Each structure stands twice: as C-alpha cells, then as structure tokens.
C-alpha cells in the first residue's frame, strides 16, 4: 500500500495521469540539468518522495528573490514543486499575519525538528546587536540562529544570503554578513544571483526531493550543475572572443554584429552561473543576448569589484580592478568625473560616439 502522503498518491487524487507526471519529470530533468533520458528514473524516485517542511525566512533583502521564483516562466512546474513541499512559513506569501504567522513558524520548527529545510533570502545585519532588521521584535540574527538549530539543511537564496550581497557593499552600514558567516554546523547550499535564476531555485528543491540529498557543490557551496561553468564558457559570443572580435562601444559595428563584450566590461569570464543556457523570462534571452555585459551578480562582492564597464584585466582571475581607480578614487574621482563629462559633452556636440570609458563616473 502506497504511503498516503507520497507524491504518487497525491497526484492520483488530483487526477493527474502518469503520462502527465512523466512529462513533468522531463521538465524536472531539464531543471536539474540532468540528462533528459533520466525522466523515467526521476518519476520512479519522486513518486515515493515524502513532503518535507520548508521554512523560508526573508531578512535584509529587496524581495527580488521571491519575485524571481513566483514570477518564473513555468508556473505549472513550480506549483507542482510547491505541492511537493509543505511551505510552512514565508512572510511575503502566507495569508496569516502577526502572532498567527509567527506561531505557524514555531509550530513547524517544533513538529519537524531536525528535518525541515530552511530557506533564507537576504543578508543578516550584525552591527549594534543586529537591530537594523527585525521581524516581530526578533532580530534576524537571533531568528536565524534559532531556526538553524533544527534545520536539516539551509539553502541561501540569492547573493545577499549567500555572500552578503548589496547590503554588505562598502561601507556596509549595518554590518551585513552571509548566512554561512553565522551558521557553521549545518550543510549550506548557496544559490547566488541577484536575483538567482528561478529554475535554479526549483532545481535544487527538486534535487533534494528526488534524491533525498543536497546536490554536489563547488568551493563556494554553489550547486555544480548550475554554477560549474562560467557565463563566458557557455556564451554564444564565445567564438568571437576566440577570434579576437570585440565590440569597443555599445553602438559600433562590432556591437551590431554581436561580437564579444569583454572590452566593455563583461564579467562573464569570472562569473559562474547558468544564465547563458537556462536564460531568463521563459528562455527569451539573457543580458549578453540583450547586448550588455554580465555584471557578475552571482559572485561574492560583485558590487565592489570595480566598474561594471571596466574590462577585466585578465580572463579567469577573481574579480579584480583593471586600474587602481577605486583605491585612489576619492582623491582623483572628481577630476575624472569632470574630464569624462567634458568628453561626453564634446562627443555629443560633435555627434561622435561615446565610448564605454565616457560612461564611467
């Protein structure tokens, strides 16, 4: 007799056929970046999967990660995944509020102690005792420590939870840190990105449901299936890089021909993410396809890594500055700014093309 709480049973109750389930598993294989031929095996494993309790805590964040997930292109897949988990607390999505909401979190933590998945988006302010962000009078710092105790694993959703993100950017007024800076004794998966690709969030959840374990991770605790390669290595413009064909400005012939954006500051060579293949907005494209370089949003400290329009000094090195401009920026910044503005003005009056360096400052 099948367990009444398995997915197989619940799908049958909803009148979903095995063929529909097989189709769903094909989509899941795509989501998890597994070979599509594995769909029948995924179906067999998922049919027996139990429903894990999930608690989602939102800390110092902009809700962009939740927006990314809930507005993703495949609501059918996502809703089925959410059928497979028991989302017991998410303060943006849940209907309950006030004491009722906090009680549901405490109840879920008690009932599934040691077994629930803890999803966190947003960084955690630590300065002045963490008072810069509180929920129901409890600081994010205390709430994270408390919730982490009973968690089977923690999934840090977005660059803020994974690496500190924009709140941690200089001068970091709230003393923001990443989840992994506070919790040291639990397995943590970092799903970085600003926001992360929705299919990657659901892909990691699907992996946990299917295999009952976390996916293989890289040195920064990101799932290798999605962060194993750089944007540059999977970019359709890569052949132009190899041929030495670069766009020099955003409106020159090279840009129109779709040449490599490396010299316009693209951070693709040092950024690990799945944008180049998974793409965004239902597969419509990704930033480089729209003609703009990668910002490196899934890497630590991307906000402080020099200018978005400054070329990387060398490919395949950590995000570093090409020049020392940021270090001496305070002293010479004003001068550069005026010079650039003059150049921009001159270019405008002469109907010349402004170069990317003109756009800086």
């Amino acid at each position, binding site marked *: 007799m099948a367990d009444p709480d398995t997915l197989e049973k619940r799908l049958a109750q909803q009148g979903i056929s095995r063929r529909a389930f097989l*189709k769903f598993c094909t989509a899941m294989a795509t989501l998890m970046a597994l070979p599509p031929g594995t769909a029948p095996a995924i179906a067999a494993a998922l049919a027996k999967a139990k429903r894990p309790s999930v608690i989602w805590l939102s800390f110092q964040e902009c809700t962009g990660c939740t927006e990314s997930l809930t507005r993703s292109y495949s609501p059918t897949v996502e809703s089925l995944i959410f059928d497979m988990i028991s989302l017991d607390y998410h303060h943006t999505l849940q209907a309950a509020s006030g004491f009722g909401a906090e009680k549901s979190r405490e109840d879920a933590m008690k009932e599934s102690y040691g077994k629930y998945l803890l999803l966190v988006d947003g960084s955690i302010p630590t300065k002045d005792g963490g008072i810069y962000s509180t929920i129901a009078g409890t600081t994010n710092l205390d709430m994270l420590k408390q919730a982490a105790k009973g968690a089977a694993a923690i999934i840090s959703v977005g660059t803020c939870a994974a690496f500190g993100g924009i709140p941690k950017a200089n001068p970091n007024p709230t003393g923001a840190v990443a989840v992994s800076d506070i919790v040291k004794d639990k397995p943590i998966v970092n799903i970085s990105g600003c926001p992360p690709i929705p299919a990657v969030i659901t892909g990691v959840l699907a992996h946990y449901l299917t295999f009952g374990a976390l996916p293989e991770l890289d040195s920064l605790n990101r799932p290798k299936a999605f962060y194993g390669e750089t944007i540059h290595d999977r970019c*359709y413009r890569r052949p132009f890089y190899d041929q030495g064909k670069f766009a020099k400005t955003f409106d020159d012939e090279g840009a129109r021909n779709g040449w490599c954006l490396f010299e316009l500051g693209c951070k693709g060579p040092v950024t690990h993410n799945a944008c180049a293949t998974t793409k965004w907005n239902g597969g419509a494209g990704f930033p480089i396809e729209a003609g703009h370089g990668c910002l490196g949003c899934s890497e630590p400290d991307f906000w402080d890594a020099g200018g978005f329009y400054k070329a990387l000094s060398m490919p395949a090195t950590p995000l570093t500055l090409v020049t020392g401009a940021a270090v001496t920026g305070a002293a010479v910044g004003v001068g550069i700014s005026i010079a650039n503005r003059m150049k921009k003005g001159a270019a405008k009056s002469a109907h010349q093309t402004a170069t990317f360096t003109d756009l800086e400052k």
Partner: protein
Amino acid sequence: MSLENISIKVETAGVFSVGNVNALLSEIAAGLAKVIATGETTVIDLQSLPFAPGEYEQLRQTLGQGEVTARIEAIGTSEVIETRCPGVWWLTHCNIEGDIVADVIEITAIPEILKSQPEDVCAGLDRLNAMLSQPAPRND
C-alpha cells in the same frame, strides 16, 4: 488600440551560426546510427545548449517536419513531431500557460511519452469495470 496596430519591423537574425547547428546534426546522426545498431534511445535537451540567436530556428528548418504530428493534453499541451528524418522526434512540452517547460529531441522508434503508461492503463480498466458493474439503463 491593439499591439497589432503598431507597425513593428522585425529583423530576422539572418544566417548567423556559431556552429551549434552542424554540431547537433552530427550528434543526431550518431544517435540514429545507435538506434539502428542497438535500439538505444538518445535524448538531447535543447534548453541546455548555448544557441546563438537564429540557430534554433535554423535547426528546426533543417530537420523539418515528417509524417507524424501528435498533440498531448496533459498539464498543458505537448507537441510531438517526427522530423524529416524518421526516428528523429522533436518534443516540445508546454505548461498550461503555453510556456515551454522542456524542449527535447528524442531519437527512437516511438517517444516514451506517446505510449500509454501502465499505471494509466490500470486506472482506465478500473474505471471501465466500475461502469460495467453499474446496473444497465433500461430502454423504456
């Protein structure tokens, strides 16, 4: 005023390939040779490939449409097309909203999803038996 009233000139990407189409055609040829020799199915996930703009359409055009087209209505529509190369099937799975959730090429005699699944066959038999066990309606 609807969107159709705004005249937008859509420029097609033209003949622009970074080599994905030829590489894929070679992989498909290898898959066909395998299915002939051993009967083993090959599945290629098209969503995991770094297509340049226009390459997807180019592949679609090259493979073309063969004798069989099937439509599946299961949590959204799926389209199953046998291409001009028999044994090479193009499967596009959409969700209820019509967005593509999986896009694969399956090299096989018949795609798995077209077959009736054993669990569904059993459920269908149960339904039929339940109907048969009802008292027959009288004809008066």
